């Protein structure tokens, strides 16, 4: 029985047992459902083995939405616990687990895949490519992310969740003070997902640099593609740092090394340092593609070209470099002296300049426009004021002397939520609504969409504005409770109300999807928003080869100028199209990585060795494999095109 004891939850509760039952039931339901409807083959052929960037994008999207709800429930539990003083809904241990998983899930398993989803789906379409540079690698990236996320999530029911915060500072996260396997999950699950992200970065840089349609020079790329390029550059240079930090953390926990311990020369703050060397660029990995989405949406619905294209690009390049030079502002209070703090304080505030340029460019894009407020536009318009609040408080936090007072308080929590929710989440919801017709061939309901946007927008304000005040009043973050005499109660109750509002907003989002699936018209054009860039020049939904004829681009708003200036996008006749073959290897490799990770979490060495061999075998197979892809014949293209045009 000793062997099985390690898998038990060290600190169980009713919620966890209920989740176990729910997970088992869900799995059974899925298996039975797939068998009953004879969908195993379909699932395998069309989804699990796919290398199509659009399908991979959609799978990212589904995962992100699932994780959004997981992280959202965590958030609700936290706000409920803090709604009144000395609440006993959660105890300290559970609260710690909840805020840890909330952070990790929201940043790494919600925001990241959401961005990956839009990047995957949109970028190749926007540059007129057939697929990404390495479709097979792209599938592997997804499956590594997916299985990393799954590994992290099973910590809830097997072995115990991590409880040292999403920043997982050592020595608290070390063996000395974290005895459960929770932090092992953290180290290894993020490692697996991180490797996938790194490969995505390489893949997309190559794609964007080498696979643009003829005529599309770098300075004619749509802004979302630019932002994706820059974000992926940051990924490529930031994620290796995380890889190293996590590997060191893993060695500390599993092999008893002394990188971050309190003895034998270990240096706990080195973890914090490396974590933030990655962690700060990570913020920009999230926010830049979001900025890209806003640029597309605002320009489309202001019916105008994007103001200051060049300064937009320049500001992103500058942000990408600066993002690597500011990380110390996450621990100004470590005591590294006034000189170091001054340097990083200045670099931090300097980032506000290029960011400000972007805000002003969006505002000037509205100038002399013909503004139409659709759901995506509404998100963008809500984003500008809310994000400005989040942004300027960021500048305030950048003043290191004052940061001694903000650090570790709810003020900080308010700041980064006011940046990430309007900045990233609104953008993703805007992107989701905007690209939904391209993905699925019908539009989401505008009325419900707008109500959702308003609910989420106002609730964000209600949930997070009070935290600025409680923070300045001395409420530290991550406290599972507080006494009544502190006076934090009422404002926390307001936050809780906001959190419920956010929950309602996201439920409305789901309802909108359901409603639109049932009632929305399937009879939409390829370009329902009257948009400006290339992705709207092909059919909705998009055929697997994206464009029957490779488009020729003459301006940065290829489709708009095709519509207005009669530029001709598609010239010539159909030619046979080379496409990559599907492959089951990425999925299998991902599964083996899952087993490998699980084995490491629980120190099951024989299994870990077998899994390692399995991974190497997959790579060897890939090395020896001959796969020249396949061709889609002209006849097939003609058939598809006729069919899609018929549906118009």
């Amino acid at each position, binding site marked *: 029985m000793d062997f099985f004891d390690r898998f038990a939850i060290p600190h169980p509760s009713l919620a966890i047992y209920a989740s176990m039952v729910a997970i088992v039931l869900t799995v059974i339901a899925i298996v039975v459902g797939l068998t009953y409807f004879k969908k195993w083959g379909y699932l395998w052929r069309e989804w699990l083995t796919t290398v199509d960037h659009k399908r991979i994008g959609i799978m990212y999207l589904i995962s992100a939405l699932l994780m959004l709800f997981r992280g959202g429930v965590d958030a609700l539990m936290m706000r409920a616990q803090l709604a009144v003083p000395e609440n006993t809904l959660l105890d300290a241990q559970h609260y710690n687990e909840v805020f840890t998983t909330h952070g990790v899930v929201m940043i790494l398993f919600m925001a990241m895949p959401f961005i990956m989803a839009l990047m995957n789906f949109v970028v190749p379409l926007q540059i007129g490519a057939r697929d990404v540079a390495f479709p097979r690698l792209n599938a592997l990236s997804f499956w590594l992310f997916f299985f990393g996320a799954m590994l992290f999530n099973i910590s809830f029911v097997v072995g115990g969740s991590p409880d040292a915060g999403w920043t997982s500072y050592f020595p608290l996260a070390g063996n000395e003070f974290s005895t459960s396997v929770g932090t092992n999950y953290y180290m290894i699950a993020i490692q697996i997902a991180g490797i996938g992200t790194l490969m995505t970065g*390489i893949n997309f840089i190559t794609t964007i640099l*080498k696979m643009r349609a003829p005529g599309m020079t770098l300075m004619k790329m749509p802004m979302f593609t630019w932002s994706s390029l820059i974000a992926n550059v940051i990924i*490529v240079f930031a994620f290796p*740092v995380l890889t190293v930090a996590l590997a060191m953390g893993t060695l500390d926990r599993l*092999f008893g090394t002394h*990188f971050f311990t309190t003895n*034998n020369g270990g240096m706990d703050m080195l973890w914090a340092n490396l974590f933030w*060397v990655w962690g700060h660029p990570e913020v920009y990995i999230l926010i830049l593609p979001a900025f890209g989405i806003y640029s597309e949406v605002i320009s489309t619905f202001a019916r105008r070209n994007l103001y200051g294209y060049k300064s937009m690009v320049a500001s992103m390049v500058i942000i990408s470099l600066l993002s690597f030079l500011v990380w110390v502002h996450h621990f100004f209070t470590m005591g590294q002296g006034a000189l170091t703090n001054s340097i990083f304080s200045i670099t931090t505030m300097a980032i506000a300049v290029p960011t400000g340029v972007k805000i002003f460019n969006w505002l000037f894009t509205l100038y002399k426009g013909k503004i139409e407020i659709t759901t995506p536009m509404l998100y963008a318009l809500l984003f500008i004021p809310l994000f400005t609040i989040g942004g300027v408080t960021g500048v305030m936090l950048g003043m290191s002397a004052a940061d001694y007072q903000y650090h570790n308080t709810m003020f900080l929590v308010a700041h980064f939520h006011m940046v990430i929710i309007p900045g990233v989440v609104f953008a993703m919801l805007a992107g989701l609504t905007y690209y939904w017709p391209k993905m699925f061939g019908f539009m989401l309901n505008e009325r419900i969409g707008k109500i959702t946007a308003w609910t989420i927008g106002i609730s964000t304000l209600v949930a997070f504005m009070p935290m600025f005040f409680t923070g300045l009043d001395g409420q530290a973050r991550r406290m599972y409770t507080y006494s009544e005499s502190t006076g934090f109660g009422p404002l926390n109750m307001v936050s809780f109300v906001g959190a419920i509002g956010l929950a309602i907003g996201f439920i409305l989002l789901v309802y909108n999807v359901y409603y639109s699936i049932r009632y929305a018209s399937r009879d939409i054009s390829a370009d329902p928003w009257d948009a400006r860039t290339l992705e709207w020049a092909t059919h909705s939904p998009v055929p697997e080869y994206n464009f029957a004829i490779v488009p020729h681009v003459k301006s940065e708003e290829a489709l708009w100028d095709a519509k207005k200036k009669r530029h001709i996008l598609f010239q010539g006749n159909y030619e046979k199209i080379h496409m990559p073959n599907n492959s089951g290897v990425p999925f299998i490799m991902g599964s083996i990585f899952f087993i490998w990770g699980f084995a490491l979490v629980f120190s099951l060495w024989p299994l870990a060795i077998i899994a390692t061999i399995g991974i190497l075998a997959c790579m060897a197979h890939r*090395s020896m494999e001959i796969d020249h892809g396949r061709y889609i014949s002209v006849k097939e293209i003609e058939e598809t095109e006729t069919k899609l045009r018929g549906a118009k």
Partner: protein
Amino acid sequence: MKIDHSLPLEYSTEENRLKILGFWIFLGAEIMLFGTLFASYFTLVDRIGSGPSGKEIFEITPVLIETIVLLTSSFTIGLGVHAMRIGRKKAMMSFFVITLLLGLVFLGVEIFEFIHYVHIGAGLQTSAFTAILLSTLGTHGLHVTFGLFWGLFILLQVKKRGLTPETANKSFIFSLYWHFLDVVWIFIFSFVYLKGMM
């Protein structure tokens, strides 16, 4: 598949060009990986706890052997790629075999070195310094080990399938990888060993 005959075989198709650029970008990530290891190494180098310092355990002979061997292997694989470009399959394979053998020698010496460290009480768990030392060297060593297997698979393919756009492409990318490991070693040699023994 369009083959552009004006370019060397490894660049001759679009897919090949994509792969080479993609690999360069991967090497950018590797620069950062080793950069982080170096940052950690320099931070922890004096934190020896109750264990030995670098000065006490480093020895010049094995390090010199490793350096010369790896430099030479980088040279031979360069010759291998040159031979491949002039279409000399046999010569190319010989150079690759020599490269891999030199890599094997390097690895042997490094393993010997590791055993020696552990033997004199500088194991992975001794102190922060020994941990980061062995991790930095180990990461490089693992890269070499991986390279040996990878190179072997490529050799097999060249032998079986001849010099095709695919095999040439793989060989070229492998050579990039191998040169990069040499560059990393130069930094280890300079800033771990020589600086430590200075």
